[in-house]
């Protein structure tokens, strides 16, 4: 895992509460608003499980700590989007709270119901970008959520040890979370993969 220069993080009393909101203007039309909201909720929950930070959906977009929206092309922050695939999204280091997704993508909230070859899983990208919002940079671990690339039609939402250790170094651990369960899970996966390779 890596951090932004200076290791910025959200400050505040523990347990820290951050509010978030999805832009009512900069959104996508082909996915129901409730489905987008539920998917973004799950993305925040992926991080809330491992750190003592609560994420609450704000009713007022302007006053939310984290502002999420779908933008196309040059949208005024100096980092224009590039159309289908290429750049999927970007987010800003703490305590900016801006999280932008490329409106040109074929966003999917359920890959099983989306037939497009270039469909991009919304929860996966949102989970990655929330990692940036919290202060993480990119990881060299291919399986980690914070690895910079994501192939179309791929779901990667489960935080790996690398992601967890990185974010917990910034915010501490959620008292209800046990890291060794994740370590065991990753070890089991690695053993299963090794066995499958041997077998083949």
């Amino acid at each position, binding site marked *: 895992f890596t951090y932004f*220069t200076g290791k910025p993080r959200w400050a505040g009393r523990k347990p820290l509460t951050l509010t978030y909101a999805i832009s009512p203007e900069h959104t996508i039309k082909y996915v129901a608003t409730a489905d987008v909201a539920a998917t973004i909720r799950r993305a925040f929950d992926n991080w809330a499980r491992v750190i003592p930070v609560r994420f609450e959906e704000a009713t007022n977009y302007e006053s939310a700590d984290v502002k999420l929206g779908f933008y196309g092309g040059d949208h005024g922050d100096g980092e224009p989007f590039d159309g289908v695939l290429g750049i999927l999204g970007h987010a*800003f280091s703490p305590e900016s709270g801006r999280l932008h997704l490329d409106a040109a993508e074929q966003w999917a909230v359920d890959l099983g119901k989306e037939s497009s070859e270039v469909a991009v899983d919304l929860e996966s990208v949102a989970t990655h970008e929330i990692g940036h919002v919290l202060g993480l940079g990119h990881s060299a671990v291919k399986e980690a959520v914070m*690895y910079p690339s994501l*192939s179309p039609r791929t779901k990667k939402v489960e935080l790996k040890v690398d992601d967890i250790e990185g974010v917990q170094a910034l915010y501490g651990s959620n008292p209800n979370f046990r890291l060794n369960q994740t370590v065991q899970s990753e070890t089991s996966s690695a053993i299963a993969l090794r066995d499958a390779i041997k077998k083949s």
Partner: protein
Amino acid sequence: KDDDQHRQALFRATQYNSNYTWRSFHRLLDLERGSRVDGLVGLKQYFVRFGYLISTNSADSVLSDAFDARLETAVLRYQASLGLPVTGKLDATTLSEVMAPRCGVPDLNPNRSRAAETVQR
């Protein structure tokens, strides 16, 4: 022969996963230091964008199609940063990763982005 088959399989996967923005990079397969190919400047701009190559001025080598020492260093950094085999060449594994859809935040020195400058203000 095995190597050729592996390369072909890998490249089919690359093309399936490749994005519209960087699709043309497939022409750069197997280039190494000393090569000169039209389109290499696009790859250099990619490495500038994601923090692997620093453009010092408008006349520097970033604007040329030569695979020079600076580009080789950028490729080495890229491979090391993303856990790829460190070869310094544009092998199939490296190009496959370059062409994959990705996050717009730079991998190295992310605070160099305008986003971070805004935060600092």
